Each structure stands twice: as structure tokens, then as C-alpha cells.
């Protein structure tokens, strides 16, 4: 995963689906699993951050509207 690239929510979600499927697949090696798990956790965090930022932006926009 390139960190520099701006994270796209949709792409991240699709990657998360792939990761969790791979993790639940018994044939994935331990080394690969831990790497996937780490990537998954980072992606989950960034997705949450995107959602929270979006919520803040929405709230701000709606507030500006009320004023």
C-alpha cells in the first residue's frame, strides 16, 4: 500500500474485502497473514478517519446553512 497516495474510500473498502477473505482462507501463510492483518488494520483506521472527516464536513456545512 502506498502511503503517499490519497486514500480512496471505495478502493480501500474493496481492498479490505479482499484482505478479510484472504485472512479467512486457511491456506494463507502465517507471514502473509500477519502482513495482511497489519494492512487491514491500517486501512480500517484510514476508512474510519475518512468517514469521521466527512461527517464533520457535513455537520459544518449544515451548520453554515442554518446560520
Amino acid at each position: 500500500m502506498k502511503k503517499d497516495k490519497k486514500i480512496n474510500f471505495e478502493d480501500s473498502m474493496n481492498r479490505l474485502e479482499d484482505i478479510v477473505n484472504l485472512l479467512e482462507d486457511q491456506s494463507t501463510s502465517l507471514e502473509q497473514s500477519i502482513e495482511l492483518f497489519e494492512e487491514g488494520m491500517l486501512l480500517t483506521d484510514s476508512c474510519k478517519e475518512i468517514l469521521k472527516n466527512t461527517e464533520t464536513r457535513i455537520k459544518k456545512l449544515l451548520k453554515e446553512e442554518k446560520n
Partner: protein
Amino acid sequence: MLKEKQNHESFNLTKNIYTVSDFTNSLKNLIEEKFSFISIKGEISNLSQPTSGHIYFTLKDEKAEIKAVMFRGYKNNLKLNLHDGMEIIAVGDVSVYTQRGYHQLIVKNIEVAGQGSLFIAFEKLKKKLNDQGLFDKFHKKKLPKFPLEIGIITSSTGAAVEDIINILTRRAPHVKLNLRPTIVQGTKASNDIIQAIDQFDKNKNIELIILGRGGGSIEDLWCFNEEKLINKIFECQTPIITGIGHETDFTLADFASDLRAPTPSAAAELASISLDEIEKKLINFKVRFSELLNIIMNNSWQRLDNISIRYGFQKPSLLIESKKKHLNEKSYQLKKNFQNSFNLKSYHVESIKSKLQIIDPKLILKRGYSIVYENSKNKIIKSIHEISNNEDVYVKMSDGSIKTQIKKIIKNEKR
């Protein structure tokens, strides 16, 4: 010079000088006596039926007109619905209205004399233009929903222009209005209006044109039935709303325009959605936006949650657990395999042991054999060449040992 003077003098000589009242009364008597119960053929225009119950109209032909009134008491004789343009034969008396100094027909009965000539011309042109497709619905242009600039073509005087401007400035203060005053009656009107339409149509900023005129007789509105104007309205690229006359007045311009409003005021209202309505719409949009955003956010959270609670992410220990289980299985197998091979080996050892027992030297000693050691007891003597005479040796038996001396060495004979 002289002649004129004479005439002047002769005029002065006339002793009989009328007052206005005297003259008008004389005229009244003369006319009313001469034209009692006469029939006049003509076309109705300026028809007016006020609440008083009397009916007023003008009876006219191409060159002249006369005022007419049918008083309430005679209305029972009337079997027709009167309208402008109707050609009738009016039966009644001519009377002079002395206070105002004009004559009028006091109508007692009315008969139809066929349609008026203007009416016939109207119907004829309507049919022609209709056949050419000028009134077809699919030619009607869509009116802009939120026009920002409107062109107004109407007379600069009269109620129509005031109504249109008042209504537009009240309802849609954001709309820029362009007024092009025109003549709206008579022979020059249609050309003026055509020019005005051209002017507005060339102005790219003008999104909509209102063509309006207040009420009037069929003659007054006639310019809106002229073929060249109808063609111009049809050709105009900018949408046109017409609001001509009253609700009951239909002109050919109305048929050719993109939208016909019953009156100039109605045209102004139809021309622009009010600012209030725009605001309401915007508020509606805002509500829908925030609702939609909420739904999108909730869906996104749910999607992320659904992935997060999958066991692949929820319990990383489970990931290792399966690996551990695998490892345990392997190590158990390893132990088991080792045990097996150990058992096999020890069995092998046992079997060798029992084989070895058969050749145990102690058993051999018991059977009567002896083992001869060197004096030091370290080395078994297996050959006569390993010892010499008088050397001390030990002889081991099954139940003890003998220390002795070699007296003679006897070599086996060769066979």
C-alpha cells in the same frame, strides 16, 4: 373679395338664430320622426353588457358606425348570444341623445345577418395558418424555468404594461426586464411589433418574450391577427408568451405563440416562477441532500463495521490458533513416529541380544571349555605362538581360575 363679403352679410341677415338646445331638439324631432322602426344591417363591436341589464354596442361596417343600445325591457325579444364581430340586423328607432349631441339606435329586436366580415377573415386565416402547421403543438418551445432576462412588448401606456411590470418586479425581483414600447392598434401596429420581436430575438440575453395588450374590440385587437405578425411569432427563436385582451379574446397570435395567457397579468405570472417558489425549492433540495448524505454515511459505516466484525479481523489470535493447531498436530505426529521407530529399534536390539546369548562364553565354560589368559589377565591367548615355556598363565573355568606354568608346547599336526 366682394363675393365673400356678400356671403358674410347674407349670413348675418339670417334672423333665425338657434340655441344649441333648440337646434338639437329640432334635429331630434326631425330624425326621430323620419327614422322610426327601421332596420340597419351591420357588425357588432364594442359589445358591453353591464349589470344594469342594458346592452350597449356599436353597429358598424367598413366605412361608418352608429352607437346602439338595447334597453333591459326589450331583452326578452332577444333569442341570440351576442358577440363582437357578429353581423346583425338591428330593428328599432333612431334617437338623438341631446345632452351629448349624438344619435343612437334604440334597438328593439335583433336578427342574425350572417357572420361579420372580420370574423370570416379571422376564421379563413386561422384555417390557412393551421393547415401550414403554424399552430402545431410540437413547434411550441419550452419556456425557460428560471429566466433571468425577459423582453416585454406592449404599449407604453395603459394598464397592461403596468400590470406586467408590477407583477414581475413583485414576484421575481431578480429578473431583468426590457421594455420595447410598440403601437398595439391600427395599421402600423403589426410592423412595429414585428420589429420589436426581431430586436429581442437577436439579443442573446433575453430568454423569454411577453407580448401583451389590454382589452379591446375585435377591431382594436386586429393587428394580432395579421399574417406577417403570426409568421414572425412562429419564426422567433425565443419563446413567446401572449397575453392579449381579456380571457374570452382569442387572436391568431395566441394560437402561434408558445404559451397563451388569458390576460397580460397572467402572462407576467406565467413568465416567471416567483422568488418564493425558488426559495421553497432550494429548501426542499437542502432537506433532501442532508437526508441522502445521512443515508450514504450510515451505509458506509455499516459496510466498514461489517468488514471489521468478520473473524479475520476481529480475533487475530484465531489466525495463529489454526497455525498452532497445525503445529501441534505435526509435533504429535513427530513424537508418535519417533516412538514407533524407537520401539522397532529396541525390538531389534532384543532379538540380537537373544542371539548373542547363545554364544555367551560363560555358557561355553559350563560346557567344559576353558579360556587361557596371559599373566596380566588382560589378553586371551588364542595361539601357541603367543606364549613360551615356563610362562605363567591363568586358566578361567566356569566356577574359578587356575594359576599355572607352561611346561611344554605341543603343536597340532598338519593334516
